[in-house]
């Protein structure tokens, strides 16, 4: 299993049947491939739809039907369209049960930075700030360390924040971490790692809960 599959498989189990879910572009999308049987989600795309289904077959793309990543999608029976004000009324208004967002940096206070690197990458926040503020459950998915091997789970984010104190769960290929008022609680680790290794690759101090750290199941 590669990193994306590990994160996708474990992340998909965080959902409950019937949830309204909005997934960010990139690694968050991966979770869709592993939704457990019996879990039916309402998928929102912030450009204005709930209930989209799989990608269309080549040649059957609808020019007026894409997801927020500009990819052609299909609609499932029961789906609906709406305008952007309604879309963000759903998001900001707390009607979205869960969002999964990518990470540049995340920290022990649940702060998330994922939309810009000053001087290098300034694409804009799109809907990420609204999603982080509005969704009932915010899951930050990430590779545990960046390409240079440096931790992405920090004591304090250094990059400009997407949202302050909104992340509930941090999921990487190594660990599932719950953000609490006391700090980051290590709930699960991957079968091929140890608590010590996870801590050594995490800048923030991880709290080991009294009930112990479980081994991740995929």
């Amino acid at each position, binding site marked *: 299993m590669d990193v994306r599959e590990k994160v996708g498989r474990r992340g998909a189990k965080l959902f409950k049947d019937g949830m309204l879910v909005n997934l960010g572009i990139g690694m968050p999308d991966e979770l869709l491939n592993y939704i457990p049987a019996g879990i039916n989600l309402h998928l929102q795309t912030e450009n204005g739809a709930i209930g989209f289904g799989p990608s269309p077959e080549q040649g059957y793309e609808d020019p007026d039907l*894409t997801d927020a990543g500009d990819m052609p999608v299909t609609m499932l029976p029961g789906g609906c369209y709406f305008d952007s004000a309604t879309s963000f009324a759903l998001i900001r208004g707390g009607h979205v049960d869960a969002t999964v967002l990518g990470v540049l940096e995340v920290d022990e206070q649940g702060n998330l930075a994922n939309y810009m690197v000053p001087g290098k990458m300034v*694409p804009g926040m799109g809907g990420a700030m609204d999603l982080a503020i509005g969704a009932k459950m915010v899951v930050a998915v990430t590779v545990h360390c960046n390409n240079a091997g440096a931790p992405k789970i920090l004591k304090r984010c250094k990059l400009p924040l997407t949202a302050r104190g909104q992340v509930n769960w941090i999921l990487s290929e190594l660990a599932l971490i719950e953000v609490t008022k006391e700090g980051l609680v290590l709930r699960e680790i991957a079968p091929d790692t140890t608590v010590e290794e996870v801590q050594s690759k995490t800048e923030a101090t991880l709290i080991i809960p009294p009930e112990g750290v479980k081994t991740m199941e995929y």
Partner: protein
Amino acid sequence: MAKVITSDEAAALVNNGDTILVGGFMAIGTPETIIDALVRKNIQDLTLICNDTALPDRGVGKLVVNRQLKKLLASHVGTNKETGRQMAAGELDVELNPQGTLVERIRAGGVGLGGFYTPTGVGTAVAEGKESRVFNDREMILETPLRGRVAFLRAFIGDTHGNLRYRGTARNFNLVMAFAADIVIAEVDNLIDFMDPEEVVTPGVLVDYIVRSGR
């Protein structure tokens, strides 16, 4: 009744220095025929309000590439490298807004509201310099309304009364922008005499001109 005009006549209604609103999300729901006319007329120093700048050869991306913009208000520009280049070079003034904030600012501008308080952006660069208040134990920042001189929309069906109906995810920002400009011009894929009132999404009284889509 909305007046049916050509895309060139629509472009002629825009002046150098105008603030324009253009519907669309990654150019889905953007009136491409009108954008092409704005490029041909090469109107300059525009302030553009649009969700994103699409791709260099799509939607309002073409206005960026043709260097017709002075200022841009958007939520995302990462898909158009030319926007990023002009922004980094100091040639284009870009104000990034969270998408939900951007659409609500346009809505406020169109529906007669003086602004609104939102939790989005609290504790981030977006909140800098903005008034902040606590409502129900939650910190929120004040966001102000946006309006433009001309709004350009795209709809799937329009009728001669200006009523509009959209298709798929092409509705996006078009709905609120119909309220938020002095002149509203809708490009329609299909023009009919009159629509079933039950199917109207944007009331025709908001729409001044109709342009038939080239596609």
